[in-house]
């Protein structure tokens, strides 16, 4: 009777950890998607910047590019951290 209860508890624990693992995996996948979108956006802005001939617009695009780079950097750091957490 006691063994049954422990087994049941272990099953519940495993299910709980599996859900947690699944949640982390999903988080990583979604983050990767956002990073990919940022990369595409960076390429697009670089292209637009090359076409621009107005000083103000050029400065705006340069700022946007730098912002995207900083966001990507931040995202990659979060991704590494999440991957480490997943392994541990």
């Amino acid at each position, binding site marked *: 009777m006691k063994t049954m209860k422990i087994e049941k508890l272990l099953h519940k624990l495993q299910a709980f950890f599996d859900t947690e693992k699944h949640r982390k995996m999903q988080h990583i996948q*979604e983050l990767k998607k956002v990073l990919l979108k940022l990369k595409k956006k960076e390429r697009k802005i670089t292209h637009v910047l090359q076409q621009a001939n107005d000083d103000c617009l050029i400065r705006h695009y340069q700022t946007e590019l730098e912002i995207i780079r900083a966001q990507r950097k931040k995202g990659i750091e979060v991704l590494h951290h999440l991957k480490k957490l997943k392994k541990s």
Partner: protein
Amino acid sequence: MHKAFLLLVIPLLSYGFWLSEEFKGIAAGVSIFLFGMLSLEQGFKAFTGGALERILQKTTNTSWKSFGFGFLSAALMQSSGLVSIITISFLSAGLLDLVTGIGIIFGSNLGTTTGAWLIAGLGLKVNIATYAMPLLVFGVLGIFQSSKHLKGAGYLLTGLGFLLLGIHYMKESFEHFEATINLANYAMPGIKGLLIYTAIGTLATIIMQSSHATMLLTITAVSVHQINYDNAMALVIGANIGTTITAIIASFGANIQGKRLAGSHLLINLLTGIIVLLFIKPFGNAVDIISASLGIAASDHAMKLATFHSLFNLAGVIIFFPFINQQVLLLESIFIEKRPAIFKPKYLDVSAMDFPETVVESVRLESIHLYENAIHIILHTFGLRKRDLQESDLLQQLIGQNSRPIEYDIDAVYERRIKGIYSAIIAFISQADFTWKMDQSSKLSWLRETNQHLVEAIKDTKHLQKNWTRFRTSNNQATINEYNKIAYQIALHIQQIENFRHEIESNELPLLSLDALKANIKNDDIQMNRAIETLIRERQITPETGSSLINDSAYMYSIKKNLLKAAETLFLHSGTSAAKIEQQLTLNEAEINEVVHTVDTPSMHQPDR
């Protein structure tokens, strides 16, 4: 109810009570029944903290789906009135279009006929008072609970209990009434009878504001042979016309769309009533055939009346449902939206007050309306129109071209385009947030702040306009250039906010785009001040003009910041999982400043080509 009418009704009822014990019973039955309806409405409102609104939005994207929604909700709530009030409030809030709204009305017309079946099939055949008692006991227990949902369930059970009790009282009193007076003696044959009883049915429903109550009176009376079957049919037709009063009353506080929907409800029910009156004989025959096939006895007039009610409402749906679009055109030509001398709120509807999520959405849409007007004013100040934003290459050219002084009275336009809407929003919010739980209250508080940002942006534009008008006709080209730059940067910022709105629609990381917009505001400010300092140093402009430019550059900074803050609250949806991921990557103030500094370094001044 009007006070004068009340003064007339109270003595009349009192006299009636003194005259007849049975009349007192019938009136008490109707009152208990109506009280049950109110309790039922109260119960449903407890569950409208967002769930009902979400279901409505998801299940009404086609005419047939909206018809299904109308049918089910009216059948479930046993109140087409409540369904029409909800629909009008949603329509006024811009959450539904007129086609969908009319679809719901068609569905609720048919859904509400289930009430007649319940009364005729269950109410008169079973001793329903025995069911009413436990429902009332459990219901009252629920009402005393502190949990909102348990309280709501309590109101629902109490409502149902009172409905059944009301039916029971009426049934009993009509049975006793039969012994003393026979209303059947007042039966009127022929067309005259049809018309008079239709009018009585309409009037009774308008007074009681419940077609269910009229149906209950009619079915109970016909079941004990107090009125004849033909007159009862006319009463039912009248009840169906009279029930549109709820929508008409609700539409008084609604916008033009709400009025169109109420008009549509009246039109559908009135035309259906006329058609049924014209073809009453064939309808009667069809009811006999259908009733016989359903196993309803020829003498069971109560059940036959329920069949008749369903049949003619179904006929209304079959005849008019395919012509929804034509109805919309007709209603739009009858209820014409006038271009207002003073802009009025479009989405604030008092009838939405009972639905917290709808109130928040109404205020958001109204604030967007205010935002559009604010943009209109700001752009017009600089001689631009919103359509000019589509051609970004030409923006600078357009601003430079127009060297004539622009006569634009911001105070007058503010009175016309902003003040009415702004004060209505503030009044609406303060009327609403006293009674509500935190979630909706905080959303409303953000929206209130958003409106303040918009008003601030207009005030800053007004301050800026003074020097903009003065210096644009100056002889100094450098001054003109700087003022043109201010106008250009504001227009460019508005254009970028428009792009940001498109990014939200196409889900192109809008939250992350905000960082770039914030950085650009800071960067533009630094560049502007630096350019002004250089111009003063190089004596291209006088220090006096320079100080004016610095002040006006600060106004530009404030306008851009206020508009961005408003856009952030109005257009961004932060609840999605993608938004949560984006939130992790957004930059804080220090990180944005660092980027601005990087771009501002001399090496970055030349474009990387």
